[in-house]
Each structure stands twice: as structure tokens, then as C-alpha cells.
């Protein structure tokens, strides 16, 4: 069954989500991935939003985490204080998986979603952290979505918005952060993971038709490709559920 790159990315992320996970998601493909997990492989997972909605019944895909669609049929409609406390909380926070995006990522999985250029007078201004830095600070696992481009996989971030492993294995501990960090980066070409020991990014999988060399060409820094395998494409069942249950209006997929 044919599939788009967006579908490949959403399904790849969904497969990482398990029952008993509480999934923090943002706008766009991250929301789609969370909905896919719930409809395909992790029906007991719980979707929640930084705006304060827990376990929303998403009959239509929200176009923002402040979309009124996230408020329908929730467990509770709180506010930002509630949602971030859930992630910072020593008990519930340990069950949260964050899904994040950014403009730049470095080899330790740190993210920039603030500026290109100087902070004081930037060349390009982005939205800023939102809850991204909070999630990346609080939760044990996160999934990052990126487009594979040289200007996005950079040696040095223009601004470090959300912490990955900071400067290496002891980075988070030295800074005073809760243990955690990104598990994988899902791109339009493959999947990067982080070495258990060095906490550096390596290529874990490349999509069918893509080579590790093509991926390295799209990065400013080099990564280990020795562990890379071809990724498993979405199954027909996964695609059908994704298209019919998660985005039948084709607001994200199209």
C-alpha cells in the first residue's frame, strides 16, 4: 500500500508509544502520531495537552493545542498549571512521553525553536519554547520530529530552547535537570537514536529508498551509521486506521 512520508513519520512515532504512556503532544504531526498510537497500537495510552486537557475525545483533529476540540469529553479541563504539574510530578511525570518539533537539533538532541542568528537581533524569529522546554526538562522520554536539512541538524544551535542531553552523558545531572532526554528523532528520511553511553545521536533506521549517505549529506555533523537498518514501512492496517480514524478530514495528512 502506498504511503506518504508524513504517514511514515506518524506511524514510526506511534509505534514508540505504549499502553500506560501519557502522551504530551503539540500541533500538527505530533498530534497525529499520538492519535495514531491510540487508534492503532496503544489504545490505553492517554493523550494530553499543555493547555490542561487530559484524555480528550478527539473526533476531529485539533489545529492547535488551544483548539476547542481538545476540550471535549476530557477527564478534566484544567489549565496550564495542572498540565505542567502532571509532568513535573514525581509519580505521573515518569509516565509521560513528550513529542516535540524544532527548527534546529544538535547531536545531543538539544532543540532550538526560538531564533536563527543573535538572540538580541535575530535573522529569523520562531515561536519560542511554548511548553517545549518544560516537557524536555521534566519527562523521561521524548520523541522529536524534524525535517532532514543541513541547516536543521547543526553543530551548534543558535539558541538552546529545549534540553536534550545538553553537553553529554552528565549534562542534565550537572545542570540540575530531572533524568530524561530524547529517545529518537524521526525525520523525513529516517530515524536517529541516542547512544546509551555517549548520548550522541546515531542513525538507527533509514526509510526504504534512502541511503545512510543521503542522510549524512543533510546534516552539518556526522553520526555513526553502523547500526542503521532499513525501517519497516507502515502496514496496510496502520495506514487505514491512520487515514480513517485519525484525520478523516485530511487536515494534517494532505
Amino acid at each position, binding site marked *: 500500500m502506498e504511503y506518504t512520508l508524513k504517514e511514515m513519520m506518524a506511524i514510526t512515532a506511534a509505534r514508540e508509544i505504549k499502553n500506560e504512556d501519557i502522551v504530551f503532544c503539540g500541533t500538527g504531526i505530533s498530534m497525529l502520531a499520538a492519535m495514531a498510537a491510540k487508534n492503532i497500537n496503544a489504545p490505553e495510552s492517554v493523550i494530553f495537552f499543555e493547555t490542561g486537557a487530559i484524555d480528550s475525545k478527539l*473526533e476531529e483533529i485539533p489545529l492547535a493545542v488551544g483548539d476547542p476540540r481538545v476540550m471535549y469529553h476530557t477527564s478534566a479541563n484544567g489549565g496550564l*498549571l495542572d498540565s505542567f504539574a502532571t509532568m513535573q510530578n514525581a509519580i505521573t511525570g515518569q509516565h509521560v512521553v513528550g513529542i516535540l518539533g524544532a527548527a534546529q537539533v544538535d547531536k545531543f538532541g538539544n532543540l532550538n525553536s526560538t531564533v536563527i542568528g543573535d538572540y538580541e537581533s535575530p535573522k529569523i524569529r520562531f515561536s519560542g519554547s511554548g*511548553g517545549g522546554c*518544560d516537557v524536555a526538562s521534566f519527562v523521561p522520554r521524548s520523541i522529536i520530529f524534524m525535517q532532514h536539512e543541513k541547516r536543521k541538524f547543526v553543530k551548534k544551535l543558535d539558541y*538552546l530552547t529545549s534540553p536534550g542531553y545538553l553537553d553529554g552523558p552528565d549534562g542534565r545531572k550537572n545542570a540540575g535537570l530531572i533524568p530524561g532526554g530524547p529517545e529518537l528523532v524521526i525525520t523525513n528520511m529516517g530515524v536517529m537514536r541516542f547512544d546509551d553511553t555517549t548520548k550522541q545521536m546515531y542513525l538507527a533506521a533509514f526509510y526504504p529508498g534512502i541511503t545512510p549517505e543521503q542522510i549524512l549529506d543533510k546534516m552539518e555533523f556526522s553520526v555513526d551509521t553502523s547500526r542503521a537498518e532499513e525501517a519497516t514501512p507502515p502496514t496496510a492496517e496502520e495506514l487505514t486506521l491512520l487515514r480513517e480514524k485519525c484525520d478523516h478530514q485530511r487536515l494534517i495528512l494532505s
Partner: protein
Amino acid sequence: MNLKQDKVMDLTTAINTYVKDRCHLSLGGFTINRNPMAAVYEIIRQRVKNIHLYAHSNGQGVDELIGGGCVSHLEIAYGGSGKFASTCIRFRKAVEENLLQVEDYTNYQMTLRFLAGAMGVPFLPCRSSMGTDIVNKWGFSQEMRKTSKKLPDDKLTIMDNPFSGWLDTEKVVLVPAIQPDVTIVHVQKADKRGNCRIQGLTFADAEQAKAAKHLIVTCEELYDNDELKTDSDQNQIPFIHVDAVVHVPHGAYPTACYHHYDYDPNYLKAYAKKAKDDTLHGEYLKEMIHGCQTQQDLIAKTGPEQMAAIAADPQTGYARNLDRK
């Protein structure tokens, strides 16, 4: 605050009374939901200048206020309007053209800062942002801060946990309280004295409301006093915090107001297109903002057909099957 029985004002008077040049203003709502848009448009119409603005993730309201030329300083976590503008467009332009001084925090930090103001403590602690440029890079210099009584001397500070190791914590980030001169929130229901009921997510509206020296509430539905007291478990802002109550149906339009109307995708898309171009944006301001006297004028331009299309379904609280492409 005041304890008056009747705080009802028209919007022009409320904005004129409380929103002054150089005031520190905080706006409720989140991205494309429950932004106090009628108030934002009235501030633009009154040509208030050099506002020091606070928000966590207020998207559309912040962007229009910046585009209207009202804002000189901004403390914010997120300037985006969801799929309609992943980065708010006039915000981005103003920053890139050095017309706006911005200081970045996280959403949780901005919320805690409002909570600290509401609680009356100078700061609150969190475990977010250590090791990041949120800590290292300041939008306002220490020198600039010292010239303003309305700003704390530091953006934030990192401290060792004085309860050594308690809750497995070595360090915390302390973020300073915000006490805006005025906060504006839009709610579904308010009574004349100012008791407020928000339906759906409250975002950080209650904290923003209680942190402020003055609070303007715009509401979809205005009730006689005591009508909201019969089911007060659902009220989030008691009247003791409120200075002005303004009855503005569709006061959040073109953003959403849960159980009343959805966001208007047509308006937001058209806005995004115009906002990208200075000439088109100038025409937008002239026609849609300065060309209207009230929110009702703006609604009339949208027309009854589209207003019917975005009307909320009573069960879900949003407009089912609305064309949002």
C-alpha cells in the same frame, strides 16, 4: 479591585480607563482560543502605544496588538497561532526588524509568574530550563531592568535546593512574579459585579486575572448579580478581583469561545495572508480595525453565513465538520 455591585462599562470606557500608554498589560487566552480580541481591537483603535505585554501562548491577540503598533516590550513563551501561523507573523516581523524587545520564558514559567503575582509571593520555583538559553539569554539587560520599577532586577535565578536533595532535587529555577497594571480576559459568563465562569480549559486566565492591579473582563453573556452564585462551583474568578465588566458577544472572535463559537478559519487564513505583506496589512488595519467602531461591526463584515458555520455544536462545544482546510 473594588466591591461595587455594578461594574458594567462599555468597552471604549474600560480600555480608556485602564489601558494607558506604557502600561504593563497581560492578555488571557491561548493561541486561537478565548483571546480577548474585541478588547485588542479597541486598544488598537485607541492607538495606545508602548505597551509592555505579558502572555504565555496568546497567539492571535498578541500578533494583532503588535501589528497595530501598540507594543514595545513583550514577555512571552510562545508566539504562534497553531496551523494558521506556526510563528505569529507580525510578531516575527517586528522582532526581525528590531521594533520589539522580547524576553523568552517557557509556558510553565510564564504561568508560574502569573501565579506568583496572584499569590503575592516574589517568585516561584520550577525544574524547567536549567542548562538552556532561557536561563542564559535575557531579552532585557540588567541596566534596563534597573531603570524600571515594574521589572525585577533579574530575569530568573538558579538556586541550590535548600532542603538538600529533598524530592531528588539539586537545583531549582526561580522565576519572578508578574504584577501587570491590567489584565484582560474574555469569559463565557459574568455577572454585573464581576463573578466569572469560564467553560472548558481555563488556560492561565484565573492566575493572570488575580495577578493584576486592574482586571477587565469581557463576556459573551452578562448576568444579573447572584445568577452565577447558584452554581458557584463552576466560577473561577470571584468579583473581588474585577474592575470592569464589558458585555461583548463574540468578543473572542476570530478566536474560539468554547460552547459559543469556533475559531474562524477563513478570517485567520485571510489575516495570515495579509499580515505577511505590509501594504495588505495596512489595508487590513484600516478596513477591519479602524474601519469598525465595535466588535459588532467586524462581525457584520464576516456575515451571518460564516457566523452560523462557526457556531458551536451544543454537545461538543465546537463547530462540527467546519471547513478548516
